[in-house]
């Protein structure tokens, strides 16, 4: 009697009526596409370029410079400053080894350095504006939002605000900003060191996605002469598996590539699962590349531990209740053949893994179990 209503018909009708409305809600610095910029960056780093993406990237570059010129013509000092933040951010972001949040942190530190404010309040307002600009540039990136928030809190909540002399207070702020940047940079080394004990000789590790933190962990384990082998999932559509396997074979680690669908088939020979995270949410769950939830479910049903490696700036104040409860991050998916236009494609780039399927999280704040995450979040955000 109580069947699911065919709401997908109503949803489609509603969405076909509303695209003109959706465009006007975007701010002036919003990316001109609905494609998630975060995943575009990662695709760029991974070197996976599709023809669509190229066309869109070209359109985007044309769009942004158009916006920038429009803004330069406005005589507001604030707008010029925020244009600089995005520039700075993009410059930092291009380095493949640098995490997006760290790039944002560096850009914000540069804002403090370049600021011409003369009072603390003004500086704070400038910083807040720059952070808002960065956040609105890509609403789908969790680590960007979380990194900006944490940076602002860390930098402004200091006893420096008691100093009479503005310049010394500003230099103290800059000091704290640099320190935060340093911690974030060193985070990967710390996580790699903390997780060494969990990799024992003769173990088989399943890895999903190309997380630079997990790569660092495996590199360090190889340097410590541990014998282990890695199974990596193919990671469609990003092709992360191929990239990871080429990186690992350079380090002489035995690697085996699996289809995404072959995970359950191979799970019984696996000793542990390692994944990175795009964001860690309040419940202790993670948001990561599409497929992580599936793997965590399979691992949980076979009693295999799932370890997550995430830096502390990825801790976000989000609490998704189900998979669709987040801002959608869509990315183009190539199937290699032409898909008929009436066929829909699920283009979401990420999923949410609830905390009960995770065993431990390795962060630069230490080894945490998922229930500890909300405590740490409260401490960080206060």
């Amino acid at each position, binding site marked *: 009697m109580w069947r699911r209503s065919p709401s997908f018909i109503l949803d489609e009708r509603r969405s076909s009526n509303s695209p003109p409305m959706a465009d006007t809600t975007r701010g002036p610095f919003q990316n001109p596409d609905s494609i998630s910029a975060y995943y575009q960056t990662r695709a760029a780093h991974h070197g996976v370029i599709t023809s669509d993406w190229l066309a869109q990237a070209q359109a985007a570059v044309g769009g942004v410079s158009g916006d920038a010129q429009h803004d330069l013509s406005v005589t507001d000092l604030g707008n010029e400053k925020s244009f600089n933040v995005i520039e700075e951010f993009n410059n930092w972001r291009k380095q493949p080894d640098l995490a997006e949040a760290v790039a944002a942190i560096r850009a914000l530190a540069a804002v403090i350095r370049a600021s011409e404010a003369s009072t603390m309040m003004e500086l704070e307002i400038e910083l807040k504006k720059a952070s808002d600009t960065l956040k609105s540039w890509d609403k789908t990136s969790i680590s960007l939002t979380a990194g900006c928030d*944490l940076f602002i*809190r*860390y930098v402004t*909540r*200091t*006893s420096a605000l008691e100093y009479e002399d503005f310049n010394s207070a500003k230099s103290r702020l800059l000091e704290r900003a640099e*320190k*935060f940047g340093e*911690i974030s940079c*060193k*985070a990967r*080394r*710390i996580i790699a*060191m*903390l997780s*060494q*004990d*969990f990799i*024992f000789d003769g173990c088989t590790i399943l890895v999903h996605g190309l997380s630079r933190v997990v790569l660092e962990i495996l590199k360090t384990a190889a340097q410590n002469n541990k014998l282990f082998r890695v199974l990596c999932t193919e990671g469609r559509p990003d092709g992360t598996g191929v990239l990871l396997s080429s990186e690992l074979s350079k380090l002489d680690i035995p690697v085996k590539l699996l289809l995404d669908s072959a995970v359950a088939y191979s799970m019984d020979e696996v000793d542990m699962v390692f994944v990175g995270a795009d964001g860690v949410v309040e419940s202790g769950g993670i948001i990561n590349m599409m497929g992580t939830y599936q793997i965590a479910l399979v691992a949980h049903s076979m009693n295999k531990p799932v370890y997550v490696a995430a830096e*502390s700036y990825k801790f976000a104040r989000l609490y998704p209740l189900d998979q669709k409860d987040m801002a959608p991050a869509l990315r183009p998916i190539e199937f290699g053949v032409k898909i008929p236009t009436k066929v829909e494609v699920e283009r979401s780039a990420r999923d949410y893994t609830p905390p009960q399927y995770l065993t*431990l999280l390795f*962060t*630069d*704040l*230490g*080894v*945490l*179990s998922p*229930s*500890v995450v909300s*405590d*740490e979040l409260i*401490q*960080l955000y*206060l």
Partner: protein
Amino acid sequence: FPAMSAAVVAAAARSTLRPPSLQTLLEGTPESATVPYTSSSGADSESKTADKSSLTRKLKHDVIEGVNQLIQEIAGCHEQIAEQAIEHIHQNEVILTLGSSRTVLEFLCAAKEKKRSFRVFVAEGAPRYQGHLLAKELVARGLQTTVITDSAVFAMISRVNMVIIGAHAVMANGGVIGPVGVNMAALAAQKHAVPFVVLAGSHKLCPLYPHNPEVLLNELRSPSELLDFGEFSDCLDFGAGSGSLQVVNPTFDYVPPNLVSLFITDTGGHNPSYMYRLIADYYSADDLVM
């Protein structure tokens, strides 16, 4: 940098990322006031040594006080845990326990004193058979006791209302290190939806996360507890060439946190996922260098 200091760096990162607490900000000013004092009194060496000795005396006094407090806590934990017995053990219940633990003994006796009548199944806890000692003690205090072998735990679990055991150590993730055989009891309890309660004084909390608990935190005792020396001496002789017999006698078992229903400590009853908080109370993050 060396592997051991990764934990220190993580602790340092944790303390720097948090905004300074009100207390440290307030305490900051008197500290900066005393620092110039000690540096300016360099000329007066006598007062400096007097300062130093009074400082060391104060430090010694503080440490001795802390140690005494700890001794008191450890001595008093059994009572505080036993006080909570009445809330957990009800009339006409059947309790299962394994091996012998003083905390469990006092817990059960406290409930008995409050006029609850219940039965106890004691699994003997081979190879040391300490369950036999516990059974004797319980009978002496007037409780109806049944002794069973460890292998009979799964057979009897469906008749049991609650499993109560003592812990040797509690890990940071809520896992329990207990006498060998408790993992079996925990699995049996999970299968039949029987609450698995662990009694542990707060001095048993350990800040480590178990990465290989079966081997790393275990103690392998002498095989003579299992086999008498005379009977098997020819099998145990490797040089004889007639095959070799290995005997493994682990002392402890690791119970993962998802099998534990409740921890009863001297501060009250807690969920396994809450244990890390108690550990943070007792261990400063700066001290976690193992």
